[in-house]
């Protein structure tokens, strides 16, 4: 699905790289543990997380992810947004909680690559 569809489904606010909203993504994962993302995740394009720090963007960058969704209305700092912008990563925030946000995207066709 297009990144713009994720934004609509989660009623999310896009905070960086709006020019990438037309890009297609096929897979996603949700975690607050970046260690687990680095160890268990494979080829996921979207990261949903309730953790807010610079290492979330760094982890996404290392894993070649293209979109980070902060759940539960967590507000990333300007520093986090600047890093994401420079790495061409779309950042959005949603009021949905992790379980609901994942469920909404899953039932709309996004999967985790195993």
């Amino acid at each position: 699905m297009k990144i713009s569809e994720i934004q609509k489904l989660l009623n999310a606010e896009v905070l960086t790289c709006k020019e990438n909203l037309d890009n297609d993504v096929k897979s996603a994962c949700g975690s607050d543990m970046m260690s687990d993302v680095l160890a268990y995740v494979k080829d996921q394009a979207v990261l949903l997380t309730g953790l807010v720090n610079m290492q979330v963007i760094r982890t996404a960058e290392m894993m070649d992810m293209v979109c980070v969704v902060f759940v539960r209305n967590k507000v990333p700092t300007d520093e986090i947004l600047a890093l994401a912008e420079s790495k061409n990563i779309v950042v959005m925030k949603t009021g949905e909680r992790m379980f609901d946000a994942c469920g909404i995207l899953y039932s709309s066709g996004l999967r985790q690559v195993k």
Partner: protein
Amino acid sequence: MGEILKLHFDVDGDDFTSAGEASAEVKKKLRLLGYSPETVRRVSIAMYEGEINMVIHAGGGVADVEISEDCIKIVLEDHGPGIENIELAMSEGYSTAADAVRSLGFGAGMGIPNMKRYTDSFNLESTVGVGTKVTLVINT
């Protein structure tokens, strides 16, 4: 054999926010040099795990990277507390990370296993009270 490009980084142990900058720099360089996405990702993840370890377990250190046509070699060296039981440290799920580190999203005890998984050669030398040296080689 072609030429070797050498990069050196000081990894600040007091600043969790800047952790990963060296790995990001290497990733950018490898991309520019035209290495395959697969190679770039393996190097990025392995080095990032090592860089994070130096920050969360050892108070920082240095990273030396050698980039050549055949392989990328990364040496991460610190003067932290060292590792008492290397075999244990290498096993999946083993971590001495404090809760404070876990609340930052790290400390699942999968860093060293992950470094092994993404590299063609992995070597860890450590002496308690002296420091730790991790050598990673990824063949292109």
